[in-house]
């Protein structure tokens, strides 16, 4: 498989992603439909939480993807800083809005799910609040991209912000645990525990997680193509201005 360093060349990335994108989008669609439909229609209610357990098929995957999106942006920023890999910087920029939307989904579903369980629309629970902070990090990151004119400088500065932001996001996560004991359920999908939740819920959950994962990948590839075209447009206009 071609190493990712070849994809520094935008033309090669565009060709390959154009070929791969329909498949990934299709996979995302299938997994999402199967996972959500299975979870929504064919799983029993939880004895304690009743039908609200069905929200798990969106809340958990979106929360996991929200964090993974930031990690992907962190890795892409590192690749940009170390190897001046233009496409990875644009991939980081493309992934930010998608990650932000996943964070919003996790927050919204968490709040709605919390209402019947905890009695209030918004509960200052450490895990839910750390997603609120993650949302602010996404806003800052995207705002910095928009604020800077020269694309290469923007890529450098946002990469530094992403690196520093990641450290503070982790610190905030543990600061919140210290700050308020929280009502959130334990880890639903931790790999070390032998049996997290009963299998009947587990399979649709993993499928919809795969669906969210593929959706994220498809959206990032698609948006990176757009970012590359936008950069090409900027280069052409700069060339025209030079006469």
């Amino acid at each position, binding site marked *: 498989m071609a190493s990712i360093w070849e994809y520094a060349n935008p033309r090669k990335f565009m060709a390959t992603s154009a070929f791969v994108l329909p498949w990934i989008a299709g996979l995302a669609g299938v997994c999402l439909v199967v996972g959500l439909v299975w979870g929504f229609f064919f799983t029993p209610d939880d004895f304690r939480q009743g039908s609200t357990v069905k929200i798990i098929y969106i809340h958990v995957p979106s929360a996991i993807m929200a964090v993974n999106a930031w990690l992907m942006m962190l890795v892409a920023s590192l690749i940009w800083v170390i190897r001046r890999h233009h496409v990875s910087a644009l991939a980081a920029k493309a992934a930010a809005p998608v990650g932000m939307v996943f964070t919003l989904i996790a927050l919204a579903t968490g709040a709605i799910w919390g209402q019947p369980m905890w009695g209030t629309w918004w509960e200052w629970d450490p895990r839910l609040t750390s997603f609120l*902070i993650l949302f*602010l*990090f996404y*806003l*800052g990151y995207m*705002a*910095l991209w928009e*604020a*800077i004119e020269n694309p290469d*400088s923007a890529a*450098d*500065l946002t990469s*530094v*912000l992403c*690196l*520093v*932001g990641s*450290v*503070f996001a982790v*610190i*905030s996560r543990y*600061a*919140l645990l*210290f*700050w308020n004991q929280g009502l959130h359920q334990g880890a639903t999908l931790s790999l070390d525990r032998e049996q997290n939740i009963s299998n009947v819920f587990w399979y649709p959950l993993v499928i919809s997680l795969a669906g969210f994962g593929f959706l994220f990948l498809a959206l990032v590839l698609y948006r990176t193509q757009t970012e590359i075209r936008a950069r090409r447009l900027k280069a052409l206009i700069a060339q025209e201005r030079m006469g």
Partner: protein
Amino acid sequence: MIALLSRDLALAIRAGGGFGLSLAFFLIFTTMVPFGVGPETGVLAVIAPGILWLGALLACLLSLDRIFQLDWEDGTLDLIATSPVPLEGLAAIKALAHWITTGLPLVLAAPVLGVLLNLPASGHGWLMASLALGTPALSAIGTFGAALTVGIKRGGLLLSLLVLPLYMPTLIFAALCVTRGAAGQEALTPLLLVGGITLGCLAVLPFAAAAALRVNLR
């Protein structure tokens, strides 16, 4: 480097209103709180630690965009970049100058304002300790944010959006420390954590700020 510090302090006193500006804001902010929350001393005493820390934090935030902006506009930043003084040193000195002109006065003024908000007596010691340990982190993070946005016209709002999320760990631990101190509980652990974050910031952030400055000076 000492020349940089003494000049910045001289400039702060002579031109920028220096010590007074952030103190004035802190005072105004603190006096406005009862207008919003109501004068019951019982309520004020409970929220005093958090409010005092928020006031100090916002006072630091306000004076951040002036850290590099003036030197950027009159070419001093370009000249210092070509001088033997490393940009990392410049960032550290700027953070120190910001702390001396903004952070330090807040630490000294805090007990007075604590009385205004009816902070319990046992809380004053913890308030000053947490401010003394926490405000250097606010200056270091703020200098990093200022370096990121120095090239951006009217970057002040963006600077706040970038810097405030980075202030959260310090705010959480410090406010917790003062709250527990005021309630007479054991408050040493959060204070040490505030100190830990500050040491981390002072060690790493000048390098990140210098990297951002180099990009902006390109």
